[in-house]
């Protein structure tokens, strides 16, 4: 059974805050979904069955676009900027 505490913990991991008033409902719905998904437990998958054949796809590190081509377009989207730099809160404290 998922508890309100479980939902709170997952939310913290996901950088979301679920308000107190919604926690019980979220936990209940979560249980419903997990119950459905848990039918996987009864499914037997052959041991050693190879997973899907994933392959890496590489390309040559070549043909760069001209310098600065996208800078202004991207910087226009910044919530706060200093020149072409993205401005954020100080992370490391010197105290």
């Amino acid at each position, binding site marked *: 059974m998922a508890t309100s505490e479980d939902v709170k913990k997952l939310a913290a991991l996901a950088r979301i805050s679920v308000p107190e008033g919604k926690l019980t409902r979220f936990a209940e719905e979560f249980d419903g*979904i997990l119950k459905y998904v848990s*039918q996987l437990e009864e499914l037997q998958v052959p041991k050693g*069955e190879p997973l899907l054949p994933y392959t890496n796809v590489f390309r040559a590190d070549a043909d760069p676009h001209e310098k600065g081509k996208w800078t202004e377009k991207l910087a226009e989207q910044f919530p706060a900027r200093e020149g072409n730099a993205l401005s954020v809160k100080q992370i490391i404290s010197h105290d």
Partner: protein
Amino acid sequence: MTDAGAKRPNELSITEAASVLRSGQFSVRELFDACFATAEARNSELNAYREFFIDAETDAAIDAAQKRLDTEGEKAPMLCGVPLAIKDNILIEGRIASASSKILENYRATYDATVIMKLKAEGAIFIGRTNMDEFAMGSSTEHSAFGATKNPHDVSRVPGGSSGGSAAAVAAHTVIAALGSDTGGSIRQPAAHCGLVGFKPTYGSISRSGLMALGSSLDQIGPLTKTVADAKILFDAIQGNDTLDSTTIPAESPYEKRGTPKVFRVGVPYHLLDSGIDPDLRANFDIALQKIKEQGHEIVEVNLPTSSYALAVYYVIMPAEASTNLSRFDGMRYGLAKRGKTLLDDYVETRTEGFGEEVQRRILLGTFVLSSGYIDAYYRKADAARAVLTKEYDDAFEKVDVIAFPTTPSPAFKFGEKSDPVSMYLEDIFTVTANLTGMPAISVPMGTVMREGKDLSTGIHFTAPKGADDLLFTIGAAITGETLLHGH
């Protein structure tokens, strides 16, 4: 094409529109205006569009397309001058693309998606961006942050989702065709509910560059159209290898070349259809199979035992990928940016206010199935099951050319009817398998069922082996009675 003359221009298919534009019966401007007039008149009721693109850029595109038709005539691309609607999660440079989420409400795309570049090169005209379930998470378009879209055939019902805006826009004849995206059925299910053709190509056929990611191993862009021929035209225009998406199929395809058979062997997994299917819809399905048989094709029973677990597999894999993909939305570089006391507050406040409930639910679910202690039981098990499921389909395709079942278990439902998440998820029970296996699939109208005096659309669904997308157009046309032109 015989009755093209009797239709209003906005009611035409792509093939019909291409024909009247070339004959000069309608200009590109007249075709666009006819679509826009209908779109504007219907949108307050349907909420199919988030925004219309009525500006100098569109005017210039209309003029350029007309010029091209005038000079190139028959040689102009089929889509030249044809108005299209684009789902709100596909980037068009300089235009807002919000995925119908508050977190991207004012986000302006900095580049064109590859599909958009290709359509621009063809001379297609973009009429607007269409409403969707937020970040494509939903099967009804009720989860849009900007209000639900209504089904044009019965406005008390959902159009399906998540590409519900695109489906409603085409079904209400406000545009000639539209693009959607399909992660678990988001093109095919709304197509079925709105009486359209919806096509999810082989994974990797179409570049995902410029499509906002939901489940990266599942997502594909595809067309929502009035005819099978139109779906093929749009697919042919936007498919192809792309250096901007390393998961696109290389020019030398690794998939077995399959010719189009004269006699199709159509596999039907009857064991999946024993329960949970609306009886009237099942009757339509049986009639459609009969129609296929009468055209000389064979119906063969196939067994796909792991299919009954497909939805459970999907609801592990998709949230896992979604929670990972959506971690990029942190209020730092673009989109909604809430500011609190600390940097952590900035992240949490932005994501809490920016994401709707269903998005938060799936992020939490994804975080759970990937968390230490659960990843083996859920994610790795689901991944293994996905491989088994794929093998079952591969084996079935040794015996049959395509596999058929209904696209959805029932016709379009009413707003609020599926408020419990699991009941909503069950809408996709048939469609998710094609995404999990990467196989191409199409939904084609198979007649209507009557509910409360309204005719509601139903769809038949065909799956083909990877790379055999063309088989789906041929068998789809057998249902609609279209004659496909080959070789273009």
